[in-house]
């Protein structure tokens, strides 16, 4: 059967699910379709995906969505207003700033932290893990020793110590979290590499004269990607919590940045009478990290059916 000339929905499905794909593109699309079907059956996973999509949209259109400024408040007329006050849906803080607007702008910081940590830590872990696994011998032993040393560190404490030395600030928080996040990725990539390094297709590429660098980059790294993506997604909740924790201790984002953890810290003083100042940002953190956890769980189940439901 060739690709149908007048594609109906059923025709497309057959084309995607065929056992004998005519091209690489068709095979890849077919795989993606099967994965997506498995993923979309999982209601919790789709919920997680929706949460993350909403987060991205809110961060992108913060300027249009936020009713007020995130940093300048109405000190005279709107200090510590409870939720539901007209114009201030989630109330205001001690400087008369609208909490909803601060949460909306804060989503940009959260997203930026998560993305930056992932962009720094994942490639580092991937490179170290694949090189160690493929090279073997002394290189493997040395690289894994270093990985184990970092893995043996308590994450938050190490991040604290780094931020203490570098000075507080959102950039340093990102660096500190990235420095403590890469070892599990290296372990994972190494394990995947050991699984494929002796397979026939690697031997075939080697016979064709591919250099070790090319084998690692073009033929081993792609095999590690799916499990790495799952792991990174699952870790994102932890990254958000660590960043919020650093912010709460006053070591992450500095005022007047609307970082959610720092907002909780500033609301701590009024928790007895104005509970909403500290409560609202916490709910935001909970929802977003729950979203990442659900998404990561769903991705793992969809990409790795062996582990499904575990």
């Amino acid at each position, binding site marked *: 059967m060739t690709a149908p000339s007048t594609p109906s929905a059923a025709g497309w499905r057959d084309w995607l699910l065929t056992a004998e794909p005519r091209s690489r593109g068709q095979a890849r699309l077919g795989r993606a379709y099967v994965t997506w079907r498995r993923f979309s059956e999982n209601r919790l996973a789709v919920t997680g995906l929706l949460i993350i999509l909403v987060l991205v949209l809110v961060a992108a259109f913060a300027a249009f969505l936020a009713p007020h400024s995130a940093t300048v408040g109405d000190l005279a007329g709107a200090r510590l207003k409870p939720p539901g006050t007209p114009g201030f849906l989630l109330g205001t803080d001690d400087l008369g700033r609208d909490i909803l607007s601060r949460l909306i702008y804060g989503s940009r910081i959260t997203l930026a932290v998560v993305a930056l940590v992932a962009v720094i830590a994942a490639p580092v872990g991937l490179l170290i893990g694949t090189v160690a696994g493929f090279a073997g011998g002394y290189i493997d032993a040395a690289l894994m*020793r*270093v990985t*184990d*040393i*970092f893995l*043996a*560190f*308590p*994450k*938050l*404490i*190490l991040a*604290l*110590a*780094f931020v*203490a*030395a*570098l000075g507080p600030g959102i950039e340093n928080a990102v660096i500190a979290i990235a420095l403590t996040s890469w070892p599990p990725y290296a372990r994972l990539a190494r394990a995947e590499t050991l699984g494929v390094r002796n397979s026939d297709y690697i031997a075939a590429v080697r016979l064709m004269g591919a250099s070790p660098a090319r084998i690692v980059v073009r033929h081993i790294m792609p095999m590690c990607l799916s499990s790495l993506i799952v792991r990174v997604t699952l870790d994102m*909740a932890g990254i958000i*919590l660590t960043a*919020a*924790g650093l912010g*709460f*201790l*006053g*070591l992450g984002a500095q005022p007047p940045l609307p970082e959610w*953890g720092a907002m*909780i810290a500033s609301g*701590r003083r009024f*928790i*007895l009478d104005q*509970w909403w100042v*500290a*409560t609202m*940002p*916490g709910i935001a*953190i*909970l929802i977003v*990290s*729950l979203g*990442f*956890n*659900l998404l990561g*769980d769903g991705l793992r189940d969809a990409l790795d059916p062996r582990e499904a*439901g*575990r």
Partner: protein
Amino acid sequence: MSLSDARRSLAFRRARGVLADIGRFAVMLATTYLGLIAVTFFIGRVVPVDPVLAIVGDRAPMAVVERIREEMGFNLPLWQQFLIYLRQALTGDFGISVLTTHPVMEDIIRVFPATLELATVGTLIGAGLGVPLGVLAAVRRGSIADQVVRIVGLIGYSVPIFWLGLLSLLLFYAKLKWVAYPGRLDVAYEYTFTPITGLYLVDAAWTGQWDVLWDAFRHIILPGALLGYFSLAYISRMTRSFMLNELGQEYIVAARAKGLSERRIIWVHALRNAAVPLTTVVALSYAGLLEGSVLTETVFSWPGIGLYITNSLQNADMNAVLGGTIVIGTVFIAINLLSDLLYRMLDPRTHAK
């Protein structure tokens, strides 16, 4: 070869295997610990532009800066500084805390029992509830109970613990008045009670001061429950996964065919096999709680090592921060390796080589 000979040689092989393991672990421990000290050295001496200025401030006269630089050995080459630092760290000498003016090690010994007590209570709660919940979820896979355990666990993974701490204080202390205010003891007991081990629950029970015991309990229960929830999320999830693994094995089918009761199959046959990897999980979550208590201690004014580190951080007391980091790192490494060792000793399959 007679049976007893075979048994003896097996025991011998096993003992030799354990010894080899211990040897390997000793090497791992040494290199990991060296790495820990190297990284803290890097953080304390190399990352700050000038560690002397970090101590005396940038308004000190030049002569003072130079004198302190020489006193502290910062004019030496970096590798010599590292050797000195290494020797000090190995002997437990982390210098003087600027904030408390005591040696850092003395401070840490004083505050560490508080953290230990809190983490222990947390682990007891987490394992005591997490294991049964995980077993329940695995046995009734796909049921409502399974879903509930899963959601409870997911929220535990996703909630910022300091925020949950604040809210629970608001509810249980300020509104309901069920628990005591932040701290370890009421002020009334603070000066009359002399701790022996530093674990207040143990000390109070040991000396028979039941009113103190009750007061200490009212202080520890809320932060302990929070940490317990945190570890429950992890433990129940892993228990479920291990149990599903065991329940799919053939020996379970054999046990069913023999006509054993379902209760016995689950709690005796399957759980005992799942218990081997579970010990590792519980140990790891214990180590995690020792670390994770930093934020909890801050919220609950719990005078443990976490609060000590954050207080020192806010006062730029680098000696105390690095000393605390090394001590927590040491405990963390030790628990990790011990749990690994325990796993090998409990699981006979790892001896077959």
